[in-house]
């Protein structure tokens, strides 16, 4: 591997995005959780849920801040590291990029209002209504920015003539074939991962001996949400696989180590590749890939051998696929188990192994989220604009990418560590019970 400016630009973009998407995901998912908690709190007149919304909102401000600054970084890095790409694609995708900023602007305004008007309005619902523009803004910015990424996977809405884009149709570029499945998958996994992370925090608190009503209610709410969202995620994953089989077969084939085009294709879980490129140690489910690709066990699935060798994505993305899918299944199973156990009176859903499994699902979901994005992005290598422009043609020719990489690596290290420290301190210094007493002096413990 040569560390030229192309490789370094890829590394820097990867690092920035992998760091940013953690906060972007929280930014999309947590407002929904806050809105749900406040809704239940007002509806049931239950201070526990209101406190939950407040405490989440407070932690949320920290992650939003980091999300905003890293988002600014990736926004500028697009032009700094991929100037040739932006010169061409800027003409075609400027609209969704622009609209993404609008959505973010909208969210920023209402988030500012939401955080500072908790006790300002007479009607409780007025304050809750503010969560709607926040959710619309955050999900809409996910939507718009995902259309840009979808466009890079399945470009359309322009013709390329001598390196110049002509006959541009901005709407067609936005509504490209990859957009629906991608947006669905991004939004559902963001909701799921956020819910799983919040559930993990509560489960951990309960394991540490905080077994008050506040914690129990929080756990039930977050785990139930995580279950619902993980089912949505599974559906979205299925939609995405069918989409890939049809439109971007080389990505699915590389992810599944599916080389020969055939009907009744097997799916491969786990496994390794030996030196001759043969698959070993795998779990093979006959014909399942065909079913995944087209709802019938006889669907023909295009193999990787159909793609010219210099246009194939690397085969290691299979591991990313494994990680993503198995974690998704694990989280769905654990959350389902918890919900079922909590319904049956005899069973104790607060048993240690289950709580630990819930604690694990938080970070695991985050890993799955990252793995999924790596799969999606590396799966379209070597293209930056699939079928039009390769990554190597798009990178900057500057000689300074190396030093820039180091500067940003340090920045993310500091930001990451500080965020964790500040968040932990923030909640340690103000335990839930104390805050409940202070804020809702009558009825705090009993409601």
């Amino acid at each position: 591997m040569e560390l030229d400016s192309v490789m370094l630009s890829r590394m820097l973009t990867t690092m920035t995005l992998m760091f940013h998407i953690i906060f972007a995901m929280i930014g999309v998912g947590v407002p929904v959780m806050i809105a749900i908690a406040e809704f239940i709190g007002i509806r049931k007149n239950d201070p526990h849920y209101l406190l939950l919304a407040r405490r989440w909102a407070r932690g949320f401000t920290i992650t939003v801040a980091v999300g905003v600054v890293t988002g600014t970084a990736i926004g500028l890095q697009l032009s700094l590291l991929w100037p040739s790409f932006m010169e061409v694609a800027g003409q075609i995708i400027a609209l969704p990029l622009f609209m993404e900023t609008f959505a973010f602007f909208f969210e920023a305004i209402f988030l500012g209002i939401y955080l500072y008007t908790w006790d300002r309005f007479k009607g409780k619902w007025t304050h809750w209504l503010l969560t709607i523009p926040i959710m619309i803004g955050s999900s809409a910015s996910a939507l718009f920015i995902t259309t840009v990424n979808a466009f890079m996977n399945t470009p359309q809405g322009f013709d390329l003539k001598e390196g110049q884009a002509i006959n541009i149709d901005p709407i067609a570029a936005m509504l490209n074939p990859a957009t629906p499945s991608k947006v669905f998958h991004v939004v559902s996994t963001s909701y799921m991962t956020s819910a799983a992370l919040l559930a993990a925090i509560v489960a951990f608190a309960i394991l540490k001996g905080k077994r008050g009503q506040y914690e129990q209610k929080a756990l039930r709410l977050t785990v139930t949400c995580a279950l619902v969202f993980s089912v949505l995620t599974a559906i979205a994953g299925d939609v995405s696989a069918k989409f890939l089989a049809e439109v971007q077969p080389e990505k699915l084939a590389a992810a599944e180590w599916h080389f020969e085009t055939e009907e009744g294709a097997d799916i491969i879980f786990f496994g390794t590749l030996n030196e001759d490129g043969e698959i070993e140690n795998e779990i093979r489910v006959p014909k399942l890939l065909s079913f995944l690709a087209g709802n019938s066990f006889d669907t023909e699935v295009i193999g990787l051998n159909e793609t010219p060798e210099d246009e194939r994505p690397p085969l290691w993305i299979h591991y990313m696929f494994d990680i993503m899918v198995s974690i998704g299944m694990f989280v769905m199973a654990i959350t389902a188990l918890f919900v079922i156990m909590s319904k049956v009176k005899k069973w104790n859903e607060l048993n240690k192994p289950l709580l630990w499994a819930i604690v694990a699902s938080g970070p695991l979901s985050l890993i799955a989220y990252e793995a999924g994005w790596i799969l999606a992005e590396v799966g379209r290598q070597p293209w930056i604009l699939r079928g039009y422009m390769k990554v190597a043609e798009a990178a900057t020719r500057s000689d300074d990418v190396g030093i820039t990489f180091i500067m940003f690596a340090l920045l993310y290290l500091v930001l990451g560590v500080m965020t964790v420290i500040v968040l932990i301190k923030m909640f340690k210094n103000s335990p839930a019970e104390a805050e409940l007493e202070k804020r809702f002096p009558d009825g705090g413990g009993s409601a």
Partner: protein
Amino acid sequence: MNLELLGITVLWTFLYGYLIVSSIDFGAGFFAFYARWKKKDHIMNDLISRYLSPVWEVTNVFFVFFFVGIVGFFPATAYYFGTALLIPASVAIILLAIRGSFYAFNNYGSRESMLYLFLYGATGLLIPASLSTVLTISEGGFLAVSTDDKVTFLAKELFTSPFSWSVVLLSIVSVLYISATFLTYYADRANDRQARRTIRQFALFWSMPTIVASLLVFISLQMHNPEHYNKAVTEYWWMFGLSLLCFGIASWFIYTGKRYGTAFIMVMMQFFFAFFGYGASHLPYILYPYITVHESVTNETMALALVIAFILGLLLLIPSLILLMRLFLFDADYVKGKKK
């Protein structure tokens, strides 16, 4: 008005918006740190954070808006500025990142920390300086373009240019000046006499350097880019004249200690005329002499789509911004700290 002129005007307006709101923010950060250092923070830091907390994110969006918009309207800027500015722009992003997140750590986090406040205050002055280099570079002379279109940034030329330093100077002092005049007004609304007295002194103190630095920029521009200078003094002299007039009125109100609201509007007008006079006289170049608005504008369909998106976006944003201002800027009880 044709699309490219409309485009650049929209973008310039956003940059102007960023100039005003970010100056208030950057300057406030510096004053907050300074006050803490001089152990006067109890006088004004509550006031500052009451204003900043709900709006700091919005400030950042103005900036994002500008750079997303300029690449959209004028994609060639991505190539030239993008290639050339890797290091300076990365430094600016890192400073912005430190500032934004440390603001949140300090204000929403567990406790206030002197170190956070220092980073917040110091970056508040360094960011305008680093961002202003982009404006300097747009005057030409700091990029080398080889025959195969490879763009190189001539850092040494930039660091030794009197023009670039005068722009840096102007950006820093005007940040402090704009911020101080706004905070004087805000303190006045809050009926916080002590804070008002302190900040009013800042406003008066920074007014003179602002004018001196502006003159320096003019003089060094004449040496650096005579074409631009000539256009500024012959065609747009009246805008700079109006700017000076507004400065005079603003200073008078602040000096006599009344009508701080009008004074701040005058400061906004002062910078409005200067900024638009500067921008208009720089046209048709975006990056002298490589990019002009006419040659580099995006295709017509996209430009039109952007303008439509922009108008629809404004229909959404303006009412929301008014709501934000009514809740936190013009709500007397909130400003006085009686409401949370």
